[in-house]
């Protein structure tokens, strides 16, 4: 069901929260008026380009910048030693920090410019600053680097086996950490006693975020005040300011980080990279504005990729198909250095979600983090949770097949029952609320499941192979309760801050420390604040993404903005209303306890005396008649720290037809039923689901960062890395159920990552369901036609039959040999 947008003018003020109004962001974005970082032009601005390693792993014996420095238009060239000069670095560490620690973590140095060694293709070696962007790039080509190549590997298994060569002296065997969660002994017992078990070896491939806007930064230094402005593609300007302050040695209060319009992030603009810090550093040194904009190829080599797991997972069941245990062993690719949130992603954002929607009495997971010769790996949309949900839902489908139970029934019988919430899992987290049967029933109804199975049967008789795949996902969003995050290793609190300020004329500016980059916060936050204050929606302006305007903040990621940022806005609004209530009581000569607030009006109960909140705002600034000891003005700042994560859930169903002769997959339908709690703006929710599912389908069918044996990226442009196109994504049917979050004031659960978490396994399960007659129970992602074809034919060969239409083992082997970098 498609949601119809509403003109905000047609919505009653009382209904603004929860209405599918059109976005106020759009007029600037559809007219070209929006300002993205690369649109910024400052007087006397210089352009920076970065020379990056050609090799995945190499010693550097010499960097000769002489020819580059002599080129017309080149202003400066910096190498590691140049930036290390105290006049340039001040007291900055020049090391990129990680923001999450684990007990077993082996931290390694990550210099902003490589010193003696490069550890991934893309590692920065030198920067050129020139009058013109073309000249800056030309000059990087004139720098001569002497490399001595070392063994490299992009694969965590190989890196841990010693095939990659040692990346860091401080991480023997390339082990970044060893981590585990759950009860190993009880899980082993569950497997010993199991009636059925299934096992799955899988690779959750490395993905590149591909935000349409490449990363970019413009820095502008003001020597008179020592103020340094950095405009950059950021999902969290305050976090970038804090980290950059230490890296480049600039006091936090003299550093401004502003995110102008940002063209998507999906995680890759959370992290602190060397590049943006270098822009700030050289702008300060040269005392001129400097711009750097990543090329797409540069982005492919440096934007933090996500996923990258190699996993063995097993499920134990009793005679009746009840899940009794889950065991997981994962090798996680962390790349060449530790990125900002890297240690958290394959551990606490992964292992804690392994119970899925199921009541599993015993779980154990072990994860080894591996340093490899790919860019530092970090959060990409979903971050850890897609990897968890993928293996749980793949195992649920395989388990159902093993136990001889319909996959929908198998899931339903293992769901956490409705009366068990809050539900304590065996992997640390406690689910807040859920009714897992509801989205499943709605999904079954929408796809007309019984009729589908009949159609499937008939089609098979005609030699057509339809398949249906379920994904009953769970995610933990609303990052995060700060105390808990601290216990788990976070080096920052994960609260959110807001300021709601009435102006004397009665309009409001609401500031929030999140930083939207396409989510429509300007619209949804205004809906929240207008509702809380009882004032017209158009009277609320929202400001985000600028450390000079907003007191503090933690940014936008982990589907946290509505749940944590939105709640902070509610909290500030409520504080503001309480102050206004006291002013109203004073002016109405009533006890504040007798003054009720509704629809923007303060009224004395039992009387017709009332004052509007806008009038109170005006009075608060006039300050002619205030309660004793009350300060003038009407604004409130708050810090909201959530009590728990929020746990959105839902059921996604993919219906596909697979042609075993060509290996091609076609969608017949894709149904998404999501429960993201209360919805502030259902149209925006729908858009988030659509986009999330598209990225999930991308992972299932098309995408993957592919490296060769020397850790050279083979998918280094948009012509090689398959970002799904319009023809690749089917029309989806989206539905929702609503189970409010019980512990935040809006009852919201977050929606930004749901689709991406849910979709891959729905599609893989559908394909394996379609190919069940061929005995195919798994196909690795991305499920290219070739892989599907091979799966059909290899299985047929293994079975000794010729089910797959006269294809023999030789042909399959030839095809394998031809795949080149495919895997």
């Amino acid at each position: 069901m498609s949601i119809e947008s509403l003109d905000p003018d047609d919505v009653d003020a009382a209904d603004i929260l929860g209405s599918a109004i059109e976005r106020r962001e759009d007029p600037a974005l559809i007219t070209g008026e929006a300002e993205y970082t690369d649109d910024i032009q400052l007087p006397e601005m210089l352009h920076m380009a970065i020379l990056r390693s050609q090799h995945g792993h190499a010693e550097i014996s010499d960097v000769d910048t002489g020819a580059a420095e002599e080129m017309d238009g080149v202003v400066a060239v910096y190498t590691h030693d140049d930036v290390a000069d105290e006049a340039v670095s001040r007291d900055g560490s020049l090391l990129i920090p990680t923001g999450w620690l684990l007990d077993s973590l082996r931290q390694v140095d990550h210099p902003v410019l490589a010193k003696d060694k490069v550890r991934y293709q893309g590692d920065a070696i030198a920067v050129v600053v020139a009058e013109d962007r073309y000249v800056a790039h030309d000059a990087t080509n004139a720098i001569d680097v002497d490399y001595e190549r070392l063994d490299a590997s992009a694969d965590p298994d190989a890196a841990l086996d010693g095939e990659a060569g040692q990346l860091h002296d401080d991480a023997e065997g390339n082990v970044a950490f060893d981590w585990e969660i759950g009860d190993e002994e009880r899980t082993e017992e569950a497997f010993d006693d199991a009636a059925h078990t299934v096992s799955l070896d899988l690779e959750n491939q490395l993905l590149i975020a591909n935000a349409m806007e490449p990363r970019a930064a413009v820095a502008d230094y003001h020597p008179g005040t020592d103020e340094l402005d950095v405009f950059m593609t950021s999902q969290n300007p305050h976090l970038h300011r804090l980290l950059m302050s230490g890296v480049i040695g600039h006091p936090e209060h003299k550093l401004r980080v502003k995110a102008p319009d940002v063209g998507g992030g999906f995680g890759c603009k959370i992290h602190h990279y060397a590049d943006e810090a270098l822009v700030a550093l050289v702008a300060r040194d040269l005392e001129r504005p400097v711009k750097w904009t990543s090329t797409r190829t540069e982005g492919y080599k440096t934007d933090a990729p996500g996923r990258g797991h190699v996993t063995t997972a097993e499920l134990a069941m009793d005679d009746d198909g009840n899940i009794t245990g889950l065991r997981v062993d994962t090798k996680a690719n962390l790349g060449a250095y530790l990125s900002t949130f890297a240690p958290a992603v394959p551990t606490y954002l992964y292992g804690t979600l392994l119970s899925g929607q199921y009541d599993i009495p015993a779980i154990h997971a072990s994860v080894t983090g591996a340093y490899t010769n790919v860019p530092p790996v970090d959060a990409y949309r979903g971050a850890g949770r897609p990897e968890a949900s993928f293996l749980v839902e793949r195992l649920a489908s395989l388990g159902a097949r093993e136990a001889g139970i319909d996959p929908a029934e198998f899931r339903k019988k293992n769901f956490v029952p409705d009366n068990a919430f809050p539900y304590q899992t065996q992997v640390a987290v406690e689910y807040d609320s859920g009714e897992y049967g509801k989205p499943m029933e709605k999904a079954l109804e929408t796809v007309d499941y019984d009729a589908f199975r009949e159609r499937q049967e008939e089609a098979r008789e005609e030699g057509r192979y339809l398949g249906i795949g379920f994904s009953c996902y769970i995610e933990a969003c609303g990052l995060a309760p700060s105390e808990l995050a601290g216990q788990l290793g976070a080096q920052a609190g994960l609260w959110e801050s807001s300021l709601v300020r009435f102006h004397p004329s009665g309009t409001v500016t609401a500031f929030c420390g999140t930083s939207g980059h396409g989510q429509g916060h300007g619209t949804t936050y205004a809906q929240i604040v207008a509702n809380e204050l009882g004032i017209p929606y158009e009277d609320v302006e929202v400001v985000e993404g600028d450390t000079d305007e907003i007191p503090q903040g933690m940014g936008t990621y982990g589907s946290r903005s509505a749940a944590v940022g939105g709640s902070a806005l509610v909290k500030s609004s409520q504080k503001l209303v309480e102050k206004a209530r006291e002013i109203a009581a004073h002016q109405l000569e009533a006890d504040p306890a007798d003054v009720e607030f509704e629809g923007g009006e303060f009224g004395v109960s039992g009387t017709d005396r009332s004052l509007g909140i806008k009038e109170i705002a005006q009075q608060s600034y006039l300050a002619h008649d205030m309660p004793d000891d009350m300060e003038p003005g009407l604004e409130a700042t708050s810090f909201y720290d959530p009590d728990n994560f929020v746990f959105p859930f839902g059921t996604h169903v993919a219906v596909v037809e697979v042609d075993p002769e060509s290996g091609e997959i076609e969608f017949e339908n894709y149904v998404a039923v999501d429960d993201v709690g209360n919805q502030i703006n259902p149209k925006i929710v729908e858009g988030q689901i659509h986009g999330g599912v598209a990225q999930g389908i991308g992972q299932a069918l098309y995408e993957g960062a592919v490296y060769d044996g020397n850790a050279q990226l083979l998918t280094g442009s948009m012509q090689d890395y398959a970002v799904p196109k319009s023809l690749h994504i089917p029309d989806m049917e989206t539905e929702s159920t609503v189970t409010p979050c019980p512990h935040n004031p809006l009852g919201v659960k977050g929606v930004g990552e749901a689709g991406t978490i849910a979709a891959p396994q729905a599609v893989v399960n559908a394909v394996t369901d379609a190919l069940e007659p061929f005995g195919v129970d798994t196909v690795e992602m991305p499920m290219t036609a070739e892989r599907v074809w091979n799966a059909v034919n290899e299985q047929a060969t293994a079975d000794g039959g010729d089910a797959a239409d006269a294809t023999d083992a030789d042909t399959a082997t030839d095809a394998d040999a031809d795949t080149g970098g495919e895997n």
Partner: protein
Amino acid sequence: MAEHDITLTVNGTEHELEVESRTLLVHALRDELGYTGTNVGCETSTCGACTVHLDGDAVKSCTLLAVQADGATVDTVEGLADHGEFHPIQTGFQEEHGLQCGYCTPGMMMTATDLLEENPDPSREEIREGLEGNLCRCTGYQNIVNAVENAAETMGSGAVADGGSVEELAGGDACASDPNAGAETTDRCEVRWPDEGESE
């Protein structure tokens, strides 16, 4: 590097500028002339964020040299609206939530308007085919397809429904001389795509 004097007529305004042989059209538009509504998303003509109209046809300005466009008319996203009155494609994108971060949107709309000129009443499949040179990472495309359908309906309800064509609806002279064109359409015609009728 050799410099060349070129003339570009952008959204109806003639500009004379000096560019290097290698200057890309998109950089001439953005860096030299300040038309920053056209975005750069890749260097390989894959993503379509940089799509503009060159003499009326949608082209990717990141793989076209500015000197190749010498003497041409270029229409960008900044020229779509007429004094604050949105073009139907813009209205369609807003009403259907056809954009999120907005970075691909200018290029997507320029391709879509070209598509609607060629095919005023496309099927969903034809819209998806027509947009395959433009990548969007946010929306999953569904609401973009809805937006283009929405625009086709709006545009069709004017000139097209009365027997005219979308090309006429977009082109000033044709539009003004079309007695069947609606009043709203006539108003819009004078500023948008002034040289539409002269396309090759």
